């Protein structure tokens, strides 16, 4: 036997250490989690606001999650979210005679509450059909309720593992039906027109994830969403958008694992987006996920950096009184701009408990588009920060 080595334990241990490539199997634990997030927008620049109102949105978000296995092959995840929003929002941006942009903010401070409920059962097929089929099939039902908005969404998703589980095909379809009922509809004809109108969306995503070697995984995906119905913003002035929107996304994700400290991974993500309103965007995200163990605790730190840029929609304009029969919007999210964000996610794991503290800062500006920048000022572009605290218990 020529393969016999002096240290058999090392050889046996090596054979025992190459863990079997296990199929995605149903989680066997119950999970209870709570997370509180504070989303805070920076004030609008007083030099460009028409009225003294500069305060923008502040949102408190409470999320509860409960997940449990149902039998051997099913897992049910449920989430309830409750958020309260206050502050003012931009109603219009227009260019004055001096070429400066003037920002018109909603006068009274808005106070709103929103409830979301989402239930997602998932079936795991691990080694079904005599070990030939590994994959998952899931569905989702989501309900959302605000005093001026209601939404129902249904989805289905699946994954199929192929080629000794080195390749995974992913697919999902979803649809949503929304209904608008703007508050204080008597204030404007725009709000009255929107009252009772609906919005529909249908999305489809296909992706493939490929294990390159034991340290590298790549995933590419193609997604398409078709929106139709009342897509304008009834709270903005001179906001008349097309009643259809087709959105295409192409995305690529790369993961590279490094045996550094107690394990690390580099995440590099890119997304290209294009829609038939004329918006093209690019998003580049880099993350470094680092695990550190200090028994009995283990820590995970994930610093993140992201760059985003987009071109403006064909009907974006800063005209104060455009003709009524013309598509028009001065919504900053349809303008040409760029954004940088950076943040840090941290996790502390102790026995069955996980504590999380996440922070993110987002900065946007028309100048951050970096190339082909616009000369139009866009004071409605907002900077924000999000701070989240969470606790999770698995049993």
């Amino acid at each position, binding site marked *: *036997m020529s*393969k*016999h*080595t*002096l*240290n*058999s*334990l090392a*050889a*046996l*241990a*090596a*054979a*025992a250490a*190459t*863990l*079997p*490539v*296990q*199929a995605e199997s149903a989680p*066997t*634990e119950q999970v209870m989690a709570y997370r509180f997030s504070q989303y805070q927008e920076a004030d609008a620049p007083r030099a460009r606001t028409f009225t003294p109102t500069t305060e923008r949105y502040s949102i408190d978000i409470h999320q509860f999650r409960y997940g449990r296995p149902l039998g051997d092959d099913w897992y049910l995840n449920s989430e309830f979210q409750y958020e309260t929003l206050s502050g003012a929002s931009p109603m219009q941006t227009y260019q004055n005679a001096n070429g400066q942009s003037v920002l018109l903010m909603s006068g009274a401070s808005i106070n709103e509450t929103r409830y979301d409920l989402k239930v997602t059962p998932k079936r795991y097929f691990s*080694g079904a059909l*005599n*070990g*030939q089929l590994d994959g998952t099939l899931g569905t989702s039902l989501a309900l959302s309720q605000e005093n001026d908005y209601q939404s129902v969404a249904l989805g289905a998703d699946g994954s199929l593992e192929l080629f*000794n*589980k080195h390749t995974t095909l992913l697919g999902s379809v979803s649809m949503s039906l929304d209904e608008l009922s703007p508050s204080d509809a008597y204030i404007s004809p725009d709000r009255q027109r929107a009252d009772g109108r609906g919005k529909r969306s249908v999305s489809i995503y296909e992706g493939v994830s490929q294990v390159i070697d034991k340290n590298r995984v790549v995933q590419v995906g193609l997604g398409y969403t078709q929106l139709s119905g009342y897509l304008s913003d009834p709270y903005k002035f001179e906001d008349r958008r097309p009643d259809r929107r087709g959105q295409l996304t192409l995305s690529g994700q790369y993961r590279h694992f490094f045996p550094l400290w107690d394990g690390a991974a580099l995440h590099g993500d890119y997304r290209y987006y294009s829609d038939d309103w004329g918006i093209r965007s690019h998003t580049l995200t880099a993350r470094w996920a680092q695990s550190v163990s200090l028994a*009995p605790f283990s820590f995970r730190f994930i610093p993140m950096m992201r760059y985003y840029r987009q071109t403006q929609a064909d009907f974006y304009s800063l005209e104060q009184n455009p003709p009524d029969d013309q598509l028009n919007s001065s919504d900053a999210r349809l303008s040409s701009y760029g954004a940088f964000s950076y943040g840090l996610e941290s996790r502390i794991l*102790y*026995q*069955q408990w996980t504590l999380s503290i996440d922070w993110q800062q987002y900065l946007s500006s028309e100048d951050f588009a970096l190339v082909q920048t616009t000369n139009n000022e866009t004071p409605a572009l907002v900077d924000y920060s999000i701070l989240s605290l969470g606790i999770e218990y*698995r*049993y």
Partner: protein
Amino acid sequence: MASPCCFHLPDLPGIHTLAQQMEEEVRRIEQKYSRYRHDSVLSRLNEHAGQASVIDAETAWLLNYARVCFEQSDGLFDISSGILRSVWNFRHPALPDSAALQRLLPRIGLGRLTLNDNELRMPADMELDFGGIGKEYAADCAAAIARNAGVHQGIIDLGGDLHILGPKISAQGEEPWLLGVRHPRKPQQAIAQLPVYRGGMATSGDYERYFELEGRRYCHLLNPQSGWPVSHWASVTVLAPSCLLAGTLSSIAMLREAAAVDWLQEQDVHALLIDPALQLRPLTPEV
């Protein structure tokens, strides 16, 4: 599972659910690789001997491990040697018919199978048996479930093959478990105690199935090359990082007979060898 199994776990909230999951995992592995169940993966593989069988990742991993055991034991640890049971019946003190035994030997030899990630081809006359690794592997899998749930104390005992999750926690801090090594001739008694903090502990002995004839003991551990029982040691106990490793090291040591001491010393493990005269031979790693 034929032998008594138990979990010693700390009294934490949710521990019963966890123990249930661990038990289910042990049962899953037992059923998957049982040679007594005609619908097990193992039975299917044996039925398909002579043709290619599609195997799942877990089975491929175990078979690959068994092949490494075969190589590292110079062919002594062989999961295709179970067919010798057809001539060795340990319920009756009788030696096998020599011609029948000789006819079986050419059918043994794990080197004759071809294995890749999802396919196994074994000769039509071969039969596999996971008896030497299945239970130990199951103990490690149950331990992994406990560890993933954050439980780092306790012992998983599958019929004497142990996976120790972690030390005892007392007011003095961490203390090793003092685990008894079975007396080879008085199975209800311990002959020695070993301190263990964590990892696997397994014993291979000549007392599990055997008969005595004319003053000689014939045990169930058979040398696959001669077809005859080994007799140099009464038992070998090994401590290793996992129960699977401890189990295979102790079995290989039994099969290596007189060469076991040198070989175990090369592996740098704690071990306790007991000879048929009940002399203890403890081994500790050289620092």
